[in-house]
């Protein structure tokens, strides 16, 4: 078990290293020079370049950058020149995290209920209804859902505020917009898993023991179906990350996503680079946690098999 975890951690580091290097390399390919827009004399520009170390040969820039990154220093924003990228990201993190986690929790709960009901009522009304709802939820992206929610629940009905982040109430619409996809994905997944488990021999054996339908579901089906649910963790993290880019725009939420979009618009390359790396770190962390969790809750991995 320990070896399993250690392998995963090492792998995570290697992957991150490569990703960061690649991202850095790509940033060098970005057209235009930073500071090109701003009205600067060539002297000032040269000074700025020197300050940011942009005049040095690439291998030097690379090593310096990597060294800094390892220490958590992602450089300074080109736009907000005195502010370190890391600082900006961390300042905005709580907001994005809150909305994202709320969306996942809400989505998980509703999704589980929907998916379980669909599986138990397989091929009957609730199953088809749930499947259609799930497909709807997966198909309508958050940047379509967001404005719709904003318009109907925010403007027309006035139930929720539609911008900024001054109270929990403000987080409802953004989280809701994000959660629809989560609901749909979780519902489809758990339904498929449950159907698969219900078709297994051991479920029939449980019935053959005389257990009631409810007991079979609670004691055998659910446990086996929920374990793989952990594997949805990483894809959902990606979804929340990318979804936040748009949702935060629409609802003017001061999160990381909003900052990223702004940095794209103003060509703040340091910020773009830094945020991309941050996203990757998040994702790889999510993968790592997912793998470890899976190893813990699946007895086939947790307890090594000892054949007779």
């Amino acid at each position: 078990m320990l070896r399993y975890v250690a392998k995963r951690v090492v792998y995570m580091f290697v992957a991150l290293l490569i990703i960061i290097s690649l991202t850095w390399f790509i940033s060098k390919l970005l057209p235009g020079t930073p500071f090109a827009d701003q009205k600067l004399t060539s002297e000032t520009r040269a000074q700025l370049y020197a300050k940011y170390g942009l005049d040095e040969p690439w291998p030097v820039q690379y090593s310096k950058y990597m060294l800094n990154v390892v220490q958590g220093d992602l450089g300074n924003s080109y736009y907000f020149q005195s502010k370190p990228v890391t600082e900006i990201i961390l300042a905005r993190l709580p907001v994005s995290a809150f909305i994202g986690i709320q969306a996942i929790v809400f989505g998980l709960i509703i999704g589980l209920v929907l998916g379980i009901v669909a599986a138990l009522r397989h091929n009957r009304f609730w199953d088809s209804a749930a499947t259609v709802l799930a497909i709807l939820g997966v198909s309508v992206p958050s940047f379509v859902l967001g404005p719709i929610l904003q318009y109907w629940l925010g403007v027309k009905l006035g139930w929720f505020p539609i911008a900024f982040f001054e109270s929990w109430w403000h987080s409802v619409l953004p989280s809701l917009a994000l959660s629809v996809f989560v609901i749909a994905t979780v519902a489809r997944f758990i339904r498929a898993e449950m159907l698969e488990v219900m078709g297994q021999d051991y479920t029939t054996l449980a019935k053959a023991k005389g257990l009631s339908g409810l007991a079979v579901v609670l004691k055998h089906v659910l446990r086996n179906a929920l374990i793989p649910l952990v594997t949805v963790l990483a894809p959902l993290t990606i979804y929340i990350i990318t979804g936040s880019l748009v949702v935060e725009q629409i609802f003017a939420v001061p999160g990381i996503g909003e900052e990223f979009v702004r940095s794209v618009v103003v060509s703040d390359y340091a910020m773009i680079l830094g945020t991309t790396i941050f996203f990757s770190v998040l994702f790889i962390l999510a993968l790592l946690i997912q793998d470890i969790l899976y190893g813990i809750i699946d007895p086939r991995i947790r307890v090594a098999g000892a054949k007779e």
Partner: protein
Amino acid sequence: METRRDELTADQFERLEVGTQDSERIVGPPVGFWRDSWNRLKKNRGALVGLAVIVVVIIVAYLGPLVSPYTPYGQDLSRRFADPSSRFWFGTDEFGRDMWNRVWIGTRVSLYIGFLAAFLDLAVGVTYGAISGLLGGRVDDVMQRGIEILNGVPYLVVAILAMLVLSPGIITITIAIGLTSWTYMARIVRGRMLQLKEQEFALASLSLGANRTRLLVKHLLPNSLGPMIVNLMFTIPLAIFSEAFLSFIGLGIQPPDTSLGALLSEGYKELRFHPYLLWFPTAVFSLLMISFNLFADGLRDALDPKMRK
């Protein structure tokens, strides 16, 4: 049957010559894999509805603008922000351009990008996966690691970075999108490749001197066709979505050209006072996404019966 007992005649006890081909004949008519799948698909109403809607949208996207007297680019500032009416079926935008035209032109672009990117995705994915699976061993390991690294960055972020490096245009967007989501296809194809490589008919064929390419084309690819088609059907809405996403944050189709994503972005800006500018593109976009997903879902169920019942 009781009455017949008494009427049994000697000739009924004569030998009946039944060859083995007859015994095989008694087993029902063979239904091929594709026909079987088509039967299953037909029963899935959601999938059929999805397919129908897709076809209808495509037809209207190409014929719609022809029906209207206006053009998608013609500006007329005297009739800005006109509400939908019998004159302008979808209203006009801030430059007085007819929205009916713009929406359908935009749909064409989105569909075009969607299909193109999906095919690019397929081509790259299949090639990568096939090579990886066929060559196996070290090469396969390295190639798989490569995929895992690529997957470490959220795919839309990769698309964004790609768009920053290349400048926005239909082709570049297609490339950006197509290049970020091929990994899933590659995995599937590689999996199939590895599976089929081991099976006897592949070994037998090889031992008869067939070279690898022949093996690939004649045996391995047709066997993977099912998942490939399903994946393609799922990739198209994904590509359309990615394009819309990029356009929404300003990295996609630039004006005066338009796509569904660009229209969504523009429409959103006017949500407060001219919501119709958003609703029409939203409706078309959502219809497309839902239909593709419904159809792809149904297709997958039809081609892979293990899941259902």
